[in-house]
């Protein structure tokens, strides 16, 4: 009886403490994340005058978003983000897997290489972007090196050329984050039992065979994490574009992304400088929110199903 009373009084104390302990985090998180996000989604159905909601407008912001002239910007940015995602999957996460495999094979010196490879990831993308803008500029050190090696002649204008600028930004982004896949794949490889590789080796499997037939299927959770992270990061791309190509995604919008476009609509500099279109910005925000949440959930599900259990 007394134990029962003690348990139930402990339960009441715990309930009270749980509320008190959770409240500060919940309040900050709800006020500065959940509330503004919810309001943004709701606000995308309204006509706006400056920063004021005027009247309910149904889907009119969305229909404006998908037709000329904003449609051209939207589809351009959507394409750039998509290309960016596949570029990162191939050149960052793909090559990262190769690096992780090589480090796993030799083991010695792995910590050194991992630390060097990861270092750019702790730098602000603003610093990384500014640094590469200087290096890739006409007259910069990359131009000098390419000219010296006879691989290129004259002035290097890759950032000013609308055919190459986006690829350059993707490369800089991959340089920035290459250490991430290396670390995540290495952690994944370490979890695989050495006996599996030993057995494969006795059966005569080479390194390449072991990588693709044994390691890769078992690395599905790591690949899932990286794909999802890359997807979220790619579709939030802003800093590198802003610093290297300006908020318009120069030259002639060829590096424009969904978030740079959103920024111009929300905070000015789209069309006439300083003019904002909050209704359109919130509609774009809602579309981007849907792309991100549906895409992320689908990826998590996809990789969950393909996870091989041992």
């Amino acid at each position, binding site marked *: 009886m007394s134990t029962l009373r003690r348990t139930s009084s402990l339960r009441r104390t715990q309930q009270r403490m749980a509320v008190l302990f959770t409240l500060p985090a919940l309040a900050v998180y709800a006020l500065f994340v959940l509330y503004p996000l919810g309001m943004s989604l709701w606000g995308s159905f309204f006509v706006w005058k400056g920063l004021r909601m005027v009247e309910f407008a149904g889907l009119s912001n969305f229909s404006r978003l998908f037709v000329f002239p904003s449609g051209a910007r939207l589809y351009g940015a959507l394409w750039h983000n998509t290309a960016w995602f596949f570029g990162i999957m191939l050149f960052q996460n793909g090559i990262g897997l190769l690096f992780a495999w090589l480090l*796993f094979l030799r083991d010695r010196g792995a910590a050194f290489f991992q630390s060097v490879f990861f270092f750019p990831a702790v730098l602000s993308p603003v610093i990384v972007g500014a640094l590469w803008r200087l290096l890739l500029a006409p007259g910069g050190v990359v131009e000098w090196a390419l000219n010296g090696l006879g691989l290129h002649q004259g002035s290097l204008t890759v950032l000013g050329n609308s055919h190459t600028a986006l690829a350059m930004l993707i490369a800089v982004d991959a340089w920035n984050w290459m250490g991430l896949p290396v670390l995540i794949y290495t952690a994944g490889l370490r979890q695989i039992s050495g006996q599996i590789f030993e057995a494969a080796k006795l059966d005569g499997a080479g390194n390449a065979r072991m990588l693709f037939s044994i390691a890769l299927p078992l690395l599905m959770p790591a690949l899932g994490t990286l794909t999802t992270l890359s997807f979220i990061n790619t579709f939030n791309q802003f800093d590198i574009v802003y610093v290297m190509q300006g908020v318009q995604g120069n030259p002639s919008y060829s590096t424009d992304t969904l978030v740079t476009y959103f920024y111009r609509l929300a905070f000015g500099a789209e069309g006439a400088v300083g003019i904002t279109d909050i209704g359109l910005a919130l509609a774009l925000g809602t579309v981007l929110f849907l792309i991100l949440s549906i895409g992320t959930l689908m990826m998590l599900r996809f990789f969950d199903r393909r996870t091989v259990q041992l």
Partner: protein
Amino acid sequence: MSALAISQRPAISRQLARLPGWTVLVVWTAAVLLPLYILIVSCFKTTAEIYDNRLGLPQSFALDNFINAWTRADLGQNFINSLIVTGGAVILTIVVSAMAAYPLSRYKLGWNAIMLGLFLSGIMLPIRLASVELFTLMRNLGLLDSLTGLILVYSAIRIPFAVFIFANFMRVLPSELDEAARMDGAGEVRILFQIILPMVKPAVSIVAIFTAIAVWNDFFFPLIFIFDDRYKTVPLAISVFVGQFRTDWGLVFASLAISMAPILIMYCLLARQIREGVGTGGGMK
């Protein structure tokens, strides 16, 4: 040692077989380190010397560029601002997230799963898309153009990740720990801060490191919320500076070097924890 390092082949051919792999790794190491080397040596050169002498060491280790960057761009003030914002956000995030994670992971209450789910969903929420409403909210609360405002926003953004890490580490602690303390008459606040929190030190450092990196590096929120030069953080100042002095390369290189110095030092000291944190804690950015 990984299992694969064991091999029956003779030593020399084993070394030869490793050559292509080594080459690839060394090439990428160079691709990471060369730009940083150029950044550092260029800080000591005039713009003319940067053109004449690309890769060599500077003729003299003059500090003019650093002095100019520090004084003309007022990087000192930006530095202090970034330190305040980063320190404030790290402390606030750790305290409130540890407090929330404690009951959610160690009490057996019905709504724990729902609350945890609510927090965890925040790891994926794209908060930048809410920046218009966030701007209005901050304006109404009088938090625009203030370091306090940035601290609150960053904490709010980092709380989901921190709750996730703390809850994962706290869940596996033996329940005898807090039960024994409770028998001795310790209150719940004391149990959390004097018993549980010291037991999850690795979680505290993971949260502290990744919050510090994310907040120190962020550019987007200062760009929207800060207008007054007095409150600009380092990344925001750098972006302005790079545009303003784009032809004075020595000066820009020096400002980049100054702004990455704290992260460089921190990284050299904590590289191991960071590597392991990424391996266990999953993503950051």
